[in-house]
């Protein structure tokens, strides 16, 4: 979406690499691949990926503090400066044909000698009554998107991760009160964010508690029900309980995954299928950050560049 003039590429054209994903991992790979003079195309379901919803990023080297949205605007400027074509779409199938892969979506058919799967992860849902019914009407998975709608309201953030802590800190700028509801004894945020949470008078942590239902009426969310049966009044519920890898496409084409559904990669970001690479949140790396994703994406670009030398000779 971020190139002004984006049409459907020639379906017979064979790209050196098609990068699937719209987050830092995908775009980091794209920047390096373009600089290796590889002919590439980026197809992303969501430009920017999950980091777009992070209100503050303070651990990306070289940038002291930046919003996730602004960081991805900077990535956008970078890929635009290299004339990298980005398409907003979702690939639904990949097949091997001769020495290349054929990728199809509902809007286009593409060919590439190599593919990077940087399809990221998707927010996990609680799967409790009321969650789906009130999504967009008080239940949210994006504080940056929806926080401003809850000025002076009472909110619940479900989860105890660093992301949950940051969501609570952002929401506290708008809301009257924010409760972090966490199933364990102590939240797992980075020490710097944990300290900020503890020091914020608007934020209160309710430990050792699960919510089992979200209740409301035609005007939206009114309360949540705890696992001890208590009904707790809130105006909005922000769910931040982690994410699951978007690896269904990888599964369909026989890319090996671990029990969590993450794609198994080696130090070159290679999968078990030659020419198919994976990186970022969808891969089996234990520590998932923008910077580690970029690193894996860049590694994939170099590995693909190396791989193409042989494939192109055969071609």
């Amino acid at each position: 979406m971020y190139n002004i003039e984006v049409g459907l590429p020639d379906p017979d054209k064979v790209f050196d690499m098609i990068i699937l994903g719209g987050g830092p991992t995908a775009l980091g790979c794209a920047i390096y691949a373009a600089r290796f003079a590889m002919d590439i195309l980026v197809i992303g379901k969501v430009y920017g990926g999950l980091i777009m919803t992070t209100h503050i990023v303070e651990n990306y080297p070289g940038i002291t503090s930046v919003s996730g949205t602004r960081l991805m605007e900077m990535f956008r400027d970078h890929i635009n400066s290299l004339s990298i074509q980005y398409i907003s779409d979702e690939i639904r199938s990949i097949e091997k044909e001769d020495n290349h892969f054929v990728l199809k979506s509902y809007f286009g058919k593409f060919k590439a000698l190599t593919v990077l799967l940087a399809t990221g992860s998707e927010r996990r849902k609680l799967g409790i009554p009321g969650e789906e019914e009130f999504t967009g009407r008080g239940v949210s998975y994006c504080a940056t998107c929806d926080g401003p709608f809850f000025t002076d309201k009472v909110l619940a953030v479900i989860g105890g991760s660093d992301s949950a802590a940051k969501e609570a800190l952002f929401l506290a700028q708008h809301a009257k009160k924010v409760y972090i509801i966490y199933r364990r004894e102590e939240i797992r945020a980075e020490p710097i964010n944990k300290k900020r949470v503890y020091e914020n008078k608007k934020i209160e942590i309710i430990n050792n508690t699960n919510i089992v239902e979200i209740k409301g009426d035609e005007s939206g969310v009114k309360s949540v029900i705890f696992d001890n049966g208590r009904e707790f009044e809130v105006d909005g519920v922000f769910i931040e309980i982690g994410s699951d890898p978007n690896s269904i496409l990888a599964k369909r084409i026989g890319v090996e995954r671990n029990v969590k559904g993450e794609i198994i990669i080696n130090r070159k970001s290679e999968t078990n299928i030659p020419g198919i690479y994976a990186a970022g949140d969808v891969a089996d790396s234990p520590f998932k950050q923008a910077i580690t994703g970029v690193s894996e994406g860049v590694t994939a670009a170099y590995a693909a560049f190396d791989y193409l030398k042989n494939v192109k000779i055969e071609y």
Partner: protein
Amino acid sequence: MAKLTKPVNLKVFTSQRTEANGSKIRACMDCGQFMSLLRIYEGNSNGKLTIEELSIDDNPEFAKRYDIQRVPTVLFIDDKGREVIRYLAAPQAGEIQPFIQAIFAFAGAPNYYEATIKQNLNRINPSTIKVMITNSCPYCPQVATIANLFAIASDGKIRTIIVDIATNPDIGQYYDAAGVPYTIVNDQKAISGMVGPDVILRSLIGGNIHVQY
């Protein structure tokens, strides 16, 4: 804007109050800044982009003809007189991108979704896609772009309305939108959050997408 290859005319409805000395002041809060931006685009377009500012106070007949009930309203009207895109918003920040992309696509720039939209056009009834946005929402520009490009590719079958619900909260409340992006297809199906082109197209068709590469 200098890359525009065909003329584009945008009708921008504002409200202008006439002072005692005859000077005019724009009465809506966002209109002045937005018009300044549009005039810069116009000035950089080598004459291809024309911004036609119409005050609803001075042009009540136009306001009535185009059903203008709030300002600013921006209309993209095709050469057959059909309204293709309506902005109930003064796009700022990230929302500028889909607005500019719509101007280019409206002028005939390549539209990625065009082939599939055209293949499925006979299965789409005249439709309206409403996208509720705010200027600070990270995913809204992506959904607005898809909806705009669908409308431009649809030969008048699809109309898109982009609504900034921070400045038009009554519309957000009417549709129970407490989150953005919030996409409503034909005032029936509401989709909360980021939504891809295939989901919107399926909502328009009411069935599976036909595609021939």
